[in-house]
């Protein structure tokens, strides 16, 4: 089916070339980092994870979000999603590949990464994350490809593939749960040490993933004549709205626990994220604009999805979905991970400023992900058109 990705109009090739340019720049930046070491990033002894791991965390959520399309169709036989489940599965593939690239970009000794397999360590959550991420990737490749092939041949998918479809649902939950466990099981990191991290991750994921699909489906309607359908779109909006509400609710609970208990350790990072934190006579606040950006953008996005007029308008719907998606990225893809390192275990503050080299590598990983996603969606839409014709 790959041949479908080889035929496209000028805009298709221009888009791929645009992404390809960023991939090439990022590749050069990665070579520089590989030769020098992670010192080329803005990370330090105190903020030991930066953009790579924060984006990784967010993208695990985007991958898991795809299950919000798979589950209603396969478990509840919700027919309206029949046409778009493949978008969810292919988005999961592209997102997981981005996650894996971010992990490799973050390793100090990338050539040794197979040590995680050679010396399996069940007490490390990273070991389990490796298993569930690769498992989920494989499941989505199998399910997506087999079901698309069957659709092309206009036959029912083979029965055995449903086994993989069904286990892909708990796997989607597990990838984000285990990713949350990377953080929420660490003693002495008060901001992360919260039992609500995994549910909050899932809520944010189930808003961000479908929001991205909503946005992309608007674009596909415009550029590829692929219509997800009114009913499916409305249902996705409903899912996104509820998930966004639950995410906001969970975040407010974190504020309640921190500020009502008034335990300093539980308040530090929240203060650092939203107002700035004072230490030694200096106020540190470089993440404050991002945190309020999250509040503003997700509120705008939420409103645009809720108001019937804007929801029914393709352009406003696209703007709303994009706004919500970026807002949730600011929350989980920036604030959550980077904020957790402030203050450090000695209650000192080091702020993190990513370097240009690091930012270009990050952009390149996103570009690679969207490159893969474009090709996968081109194939899916091509098959759809072929069947319709």
């Amino acid at each position: 089916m790959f041949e479908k990705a080889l035929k496209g109009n000028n805009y298709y090739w221009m888009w791929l070339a645009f992404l390809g340019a960023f991939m090439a720049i990022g590749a050069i930046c990665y070579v520089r980092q590989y030769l020098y070491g992670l010192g080329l990033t803005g990370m330090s002894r105190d903020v030991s994870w930066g953009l790579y791991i924060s984006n990784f965390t967010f993208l695990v959520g985007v991958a898991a979000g795809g299950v919000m399309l798979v589950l209603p169709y396969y478990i509840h036989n919700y027919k309206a999603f029949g046409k778009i489940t493949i978008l969810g599965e292919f988005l999961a593939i592209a997102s997981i590949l981005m996650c894996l690239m971010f992990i490799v970009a973050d390793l100090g000794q990338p050539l040794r990464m197979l040590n995680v397999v050679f010396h399996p360590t069940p007490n490390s959550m990273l070991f389990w994350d490796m298993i569930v991420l690769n498992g989920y990737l494989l499941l989505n490749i199998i399910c997506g490809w087999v079901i698309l092939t069957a659709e092309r041949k206009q036959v029912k998918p083979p029965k055995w593939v449903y086994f993989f479809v069904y286990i892909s649902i708990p796997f989607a939950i597990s990838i984000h749960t285990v990713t949350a466990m990377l953080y929420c099981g660490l003693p002495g990191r008060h901001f992360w040490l919260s039992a609500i991290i995994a549910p909050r991750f899932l809520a944010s994921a189930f808003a961000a993933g479908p929001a991205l699909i909503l946005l992309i489906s608007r674009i596909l309607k415009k550029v590829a004549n692929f219509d997800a359908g009114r009913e499916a779109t409305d249902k996705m909006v409903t899912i996104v709205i509820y998930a966004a509400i639950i995410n906001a609710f969970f975040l407010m609970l974190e504020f309640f626990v921190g500020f009502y208990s008034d335990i300093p350790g539980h308040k530090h990072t929240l203060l650092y994220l939203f107002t700035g934190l004072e230490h030694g006579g200096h106020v540190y606040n470089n993440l404050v604009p991002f945190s309020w950006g999250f509040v503003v953008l997700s509120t705008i996005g939420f409103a645009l999805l809720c108001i019937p007029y804007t929801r029914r308008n393709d352009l406003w719907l696209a703007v709303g979905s994009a706004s919500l998606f970026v807002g949730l990225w600011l929350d989980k893809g920036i604030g959550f991970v980077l904020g957790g390192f402030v203050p450090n275990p000695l209650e000192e503050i080091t702020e993190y400023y990513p370097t240009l080299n690091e930012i270009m590598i990050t952009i390149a990983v996103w570009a690679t992900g969207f490159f893969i996603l474009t090709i996968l969606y081109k194939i899916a839409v091509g098959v759809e058109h072929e069947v319709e014709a």
Partner: protein
Amino acid sequence: MDKKRREFLKIVGISTLAGLGAPAVFDRLVSGSHPVQARASATGAQGGAGGQQAAAAGHSQAAAGTGKRYGMVIDVRKFKQYPDLARECVRVCHAVHNVPHFPDRKEEIKWIWQTPYTSAFTEHSHYYRDEDLEQNQVLVLCNHCDNPPCVRVCPTKATFRNEDGIVEMDYHRCIGCRFCMAGCPYGARSFNWRDPRQGLDMNNLNRQFPTRMRGVVEKCNFCVERLGRGQIPACVEATGNTGAMYFGDLNDPDSEIRRVLKENFTIQRKPSLGTLPSVFFII
């Protein structure tokens, strides 16, 4: 799909699974039969201290009731009495272990360092401190916890707990994921953001101890290489007979360190986290 092809695919599938599982089993067998060679060659350490042989096996064991458990007592009062002593301890440690010096705080690597009392003991009340604590600094280093979070989170067993209680690093196995740095509640771990040799005076290396490479985590090792040669840790040695630092076996009721612990009120850093540090402080 005809039958032969199906059979073939089955065999391929099963042998792939077997192939994936084999390294784990093989690793167990190898480390089980030759733990001394496996671990000693991997760490690159000279000789080997007390329970180093059992490193691989001791990895996931909880607080050991038998055998040695090395510990340290730091008498903050003595460091006030001898103002330059702490700096000397830091200097000696970093010289003995070829710890690079980078002026940029972002690239800093440190095994033992001085920090204000409020940073060392974040859980203690900081209201109305006495003047000594206000002005003096405390030496801090890896606590060699009995229940170390860094060991729990490491995905490759590159950091592990010896049976003698020392939490060690295998610089050849570390993949540089820095999970241990996020896991350590004491900020004891440093990462080699760049080639550490660029921060070392290559003419004045300690040839008895390896330098590291970039991309791996490092920290205090309680001088496990010196213990193996029958010496005491370099920082303790640097304090001479001032009584500023004591080192010994916490499991031996007759040891000097146990006597010091019996005679003095000591505190540990962040005891509420249940990490059971092996480093005690007399304030």
